[in-house]
């Protein structure tokens, strides 16, 4: 569906607060635009984004057409143990894009 870019620090100290940044390429078509021949372009946006850390939820958002194209989302997690961050985006057509990043906690 789309290209993604994830920024998770590869290493962190236990208990450290880390910032996670995510970016995905998507048109985020609002459904309010018309094409060259005047027909409405149907809405097609990423409506849900979920981030989990070793299976437990960190951050989840519902997105609306007011989110800019190529949605960028950043948020914070506590590094508690080594493991994997998993990211999942779902769009209006039901396409699912996933990504993951590993972290080592010392």
């Amino acid at each position, binding site marked *: 569906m789309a290209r993604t870019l994830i920024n998770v620090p590869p290493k962190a100290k236990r208990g450290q607060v880390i910032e996670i940044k995510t970016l995905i390429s998507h048109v985020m078509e609002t459904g309010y635009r018309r094409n060259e021949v005047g027909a409405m372009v149907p809405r097609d946006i990423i409506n849900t984004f979920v981030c989990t850390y070793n299976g437990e939820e*960190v951050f989840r*958002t519902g*997105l609306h057409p*007011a*989110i800019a194209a190529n949605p960028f989302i950043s948020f914070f997690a506590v590094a508690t143990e080594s493991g994997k961050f998993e990211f999942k985006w779902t769009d209006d057509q039901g396409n699912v894009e996933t990504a993951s990043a590993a972290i080592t906690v010392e």
Partner: protein
Amino acid sequence: MTKNYRLPTRRAVLAGASAAGALGAVPLLLVRRALATPEKMQAAIKSVIGEAPVKKGKVTLDIPPLVENGNTVAMSVTVESPMTATDRVKVVHVFNEKNPQPNVIDAHFGPRAARAAFSTRIRLADTQTLVAIAEMSDGSFWSDSIDVIVTLAACLEYN
């Protein structure tokens, strides 16, 4: 032609046109853009949080006060909260007044969230007021609002 209906005469059409011209504002109302209004935003807020009282404070909605391009506007929301298991922010909703739809984003903080803060990039169709409302784990609601001036609006070329 049947007798059941009459086509308007030229005189009637001219009289109608001048009457509409005299009223002036009436034809303009018909071509208004489909934008959310402050009332729509209030309705959207009510549909999300219900009738609960919303207090000012704790929430900081950070967005540039003067926006040159409404197609991508960096926005971040921070809520004062220790984010412990018992005292935490459950969800933050952001609303706008004048985009076609009043909702912007609903951010839910899971058990692993370290801070009640996030940032993203949004679209703004007009100079308007944005509202962020945070729901705490104790059921209280806190909010912040901010006025934004937009010089180049998102979506303008389509209206």
